């Protein structure tokens, strides 16, 4: 059962409130997504932990109803200020 992009974004923002979430539907089939998640809470956290936080936000759907989510995480660069 595919997931809507808006649902993925909602789940991530619920768990990581300051997250800036960008989602792309890679294949246009509602089943293959790429997500970029930027959050200050990732600061100093190893990449594996950052990704695990996002997977935890998705509550077990990853690898199940959500087959393909290409994930990129980052902390804000602070260049804008």
């Amino acid at each position, binding site marked *: 059962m595919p997931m809507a992009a808006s649902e993925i974004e909602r789940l991530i923002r619920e768990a990581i409130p300051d997250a800036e979430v960008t989602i792309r539907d890679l294949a246009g089939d509602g089943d293959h997504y790429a997500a970029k998640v930027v959050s200050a809470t990732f600061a100093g956290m190893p*990449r*594996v932990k950052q*990704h*695990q936080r996002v*997977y935890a936000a998705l509550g*077990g759907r*990853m*690898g*199940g109803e959500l087959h*393909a989510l*290409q*994930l*990129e995480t980052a902390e804000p660069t602070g260049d804008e200020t």
Partner: protein
Amino acid sequence: MSDAEGRIGEIVKANEVVLFMKGTPLFPQCGFSSRAITILEHLGVPFESVDVLQDPEIRQGIKEYSDWPTIPQLYVKGEFVGGSDIMMEMFKSGELQQLVGAEAS
């Protein structure tokens, strides 16, 4: 410790660079596994691969082993490195080359 956990532990200890994947390096069965293989081949270091599709116990066990829900999974020197997204990020930044001791290209 479950059987699968013990077996996985032995595999990651015995092989300096090992990829748990769907399919084989010649015939990856998933785009993410294929991407991981492409990266490893670019690095030019010897690596071992384990086809989880041939072993349901490993396929389930590996997800619990590193609390990581997806395959492929790369292990270097016994440590979990990440899935194909992290491999790609680390490859681009040069960290992966450094980790596996590959010559800079």
